[in-house]
Each structure stands twice: as structure tokens, then as C-alpha cells.
């Protein structure tokens, strides 16, 4: 039976580097995609991804398994993304209830329908307000529950649920559009 994440993190805290390697292997791809889809630029995503893990390494001494390790990890990731946007003079704003922006231009070639649909979906995902996209990615990519999304982003469950539902509705609309 595999050791739970929390146990591995505690083992790493106690000086077991091998425990970190297991933990990293479990979460690297999903966390990377979460960051990449949030900032959209590979170079920036790589930099942020590395910094997030550095924060995990530095914070190991204060780690206590009060919640799932995943929630803790994505709390750090969320905080780091917020810092990243703030440094660039941007901010996360909730734009719940806004109109869905126009999808990507359709590909005229009939044989490219599937690609077109995917492009439309990608455009819809990109067009989501940052908080809604984050809620969707935390749920879809990282498997966080609504309560865990609320915990990781410092919001309440109602807000997290609402963001996730808006995101899903817009993505569903993009799926059904065409």
C-alpha cells in the first residue's frame, strides 16, 4: 500500500529526501498543468512551478497535516499565482455572470471539426475569469472538492461552488456550440 502524501511530507520534514521524490512524482504533472493553464506561457509556468516547489521545500519545517497535502500544495500554488499577478499590477477579479466571450474563429475545413471543437473549448477555458478558471482547474486537474477549493483559495464554499458552476456552464456552452 502506498504511503499517503501527508506521511511522505512528514518524512521529508524529518530529512528523508526519498519521500519528497515520491511526493513530487505524484503531483508534478498536475501541478504543472494547473500553473500552465493559469498563466498560459510555458516559460512563466516553469518559473512559477519551480518557485512553488521551492516554497514547499522551505516550508517543510512548518508543515502539519491539518488538511490533505494536496490542499496545502495548491494553497501555496494559489498564493504564488496571486503574488505573480499582483507584481504585474494585475489582480484576480470575480466576473461572475458576465457574458461568455466569443469562441475562436471556426476552422473552415470540414475534416478539422474535432480540432475546431477543441480550439473552441480551449478558447472558452482561456476566456474564463481567473477565479473561475482556477476553481475549474483545481477541481478538474487536481481533484480538489469544493470545500478544498475554498480552503486553498481563501474563499468560502458558496463562492467556490458558484465559480465552479459558472466555469462549468461556460465550458459546457462551448462544447455544445457547434
Amino acid at each position: 500500500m502506498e504511503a499517503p502524501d501527508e506521511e511522505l511530507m512528514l518524512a521529508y520534514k524529518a530529512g528523508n529526501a526519498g519521500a519528497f521524490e515520491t511526493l513530487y512524482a505524484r503531483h508534478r504533472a498536475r501541478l504543472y498543468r494547473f500553473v500552465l493553464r493559469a498563466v498560459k506561457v510555458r516559460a512563466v509556468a516553469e518559473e512559477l512551478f519551480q518557485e512553488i516547489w521551492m516554497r514547499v521545500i522551505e516550508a517543510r519545517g512548518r508543515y502539519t497535516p491539518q488538511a490533505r497535502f494536496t490542499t496545502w500544495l495548491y494553497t501555496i500554488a494559489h498564493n504564488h499565482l496571486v503574488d505573480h499577478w499582483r507584481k504585474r499590477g494585475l489582480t484576480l477579479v470575480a466576473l461572475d455572470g458576465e457574458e461568455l466571450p466569443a469562441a475562436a474563429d471556426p476552422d473552415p475545413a470540414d475534416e478539422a471539426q474535432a480540432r475546431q471543437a477543441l480550439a473552441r473549448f480551449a478558447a472558452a477555458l482561456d476566456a474564463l475569469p481567473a477565479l473561475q478558471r482556477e476553481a475549474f482547474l483545481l477541481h478538474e486537474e487536481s481533484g480538489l472538492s469544493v470545500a478544498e477549493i475554498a480552503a486553498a483559495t481563501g474563499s468560502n464554499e458558496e463562492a467556490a461552488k458558484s465559480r465552479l458552476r459558472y466555469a462549468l456552464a461556460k465550458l459546457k456552452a462551448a462544447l455544445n456550440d457547434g
Partner: protein
Amino acid sequence: MADERDPQISQRYRQLGTEEPSPELDRAILGAARRATSRHRWYSSLAAAAVLIFAVALVVQIERQPPDQAPMSAPATPVLSPRTQDKVAPQEREAPPARPAPRRRVEQAPAPPPAPAPQPSANIAAPMAGAAAETRTAPQVQRSMGARLSAATEAQANLAETPEQWLERIARMRQLGRDEEAEKELARFRERYPDYRIPEAMAKKLEKQAPSPAAR
């Protein structure tokens, strides 16, 4: 409400790709993680030793202060008179093990500017002054010690501040338009509490005014 996933959306999302970090990135992170644990082993012993040495150095320093310069009445334990101190060999006075601790201290809290007019008669500052063999008068030493202690007290106070109090202080900086200071302080906060969940109401207070949305 545990899982809101829509199978159609999940499937389409998976089709977007399964990008992964590069092997170079993996190596860099795993290397840093390994180095951190190897540092951890000797660092904790060193830290304990440094604290002990600093404590001993402080006691020695206080005991060697001339009685007339001491802020309080005569100490309970016998202390060398200034004249006797002058006769003490310099190597005995300099207490070599005390050096690493003050240097560490200097890194944490910047020392006050050096005394402008050193006087050779009071070499008792040497153990606290680092490698430079500078000499200071007793009052200067007292001022220096006072500054160090107040810096240490300030650092302690900072540590004693709860995350909420710290954030309130940063929010006040924002309100006063001290954005640069607020940014630096926020960066320090994040270093110390990378996993702290800042409530959204507070997060808004910590942002600069007139933001432009990142959502698009």
C-alpha cells in the same frame, strides 16, 4: 456536491494535452530538495551551537563591562575592575568562540554605523564586533549593544506578531500609499507563511488601488 465533474467536459479537457515539466526542471527541484535535507542535518546542530555561543558571549560581555559604565548597581558576582581588565591578555579577552554568533546576528539585524572615534583603552567590544579589531569606548559599546538588543527585540516582536496582525500592518501601508514597502513586507510574509490562506476581504486590502483585471 463532492464532485461536480461533467464527463464531457473532463474528456474535452484531457484532449487539451498532458504537458509535463521538463526533465531539467525535475532535476533542479529534486536537487534542491536533497540539498535542503542534507543542510538540515548539520544546520540544526550548528544553530543550537550558535545560540549557545551567543548566550555565553553575551554573559562574558556583560560581566566584563566596567562597573562605572554598567547601567545597574554592582553585580552579584565578582567582576574584574577596569584596571585588572587592562592587564588581561588580549587573547583572553577576545573569547574566540563568540565570533560566529555575532556575525550571524549582524546578518539578521544590521549593526549600527561604526563608532567615529575609537579609543584604544576599551577593547571589550572586540568579541561582539566581528573580525575587525576595532576598539570602542564603553558607552559606545553600550550603545552598540543597545542597538543590537533593540534590533533583536524588534525581530522578536516581528516573530510574535500573528499573521493577521502582520497583514493588517501591510494593509495600512497600502492605505498610506507606501506600496513599495508593502510589497517588500508582503514578500517577507509569503516567505514565512507560504501556505497562509489570506481571506479575500484582506486580499483586496493588500492590493494596489485601481487594479486592472487579470481575468482576460
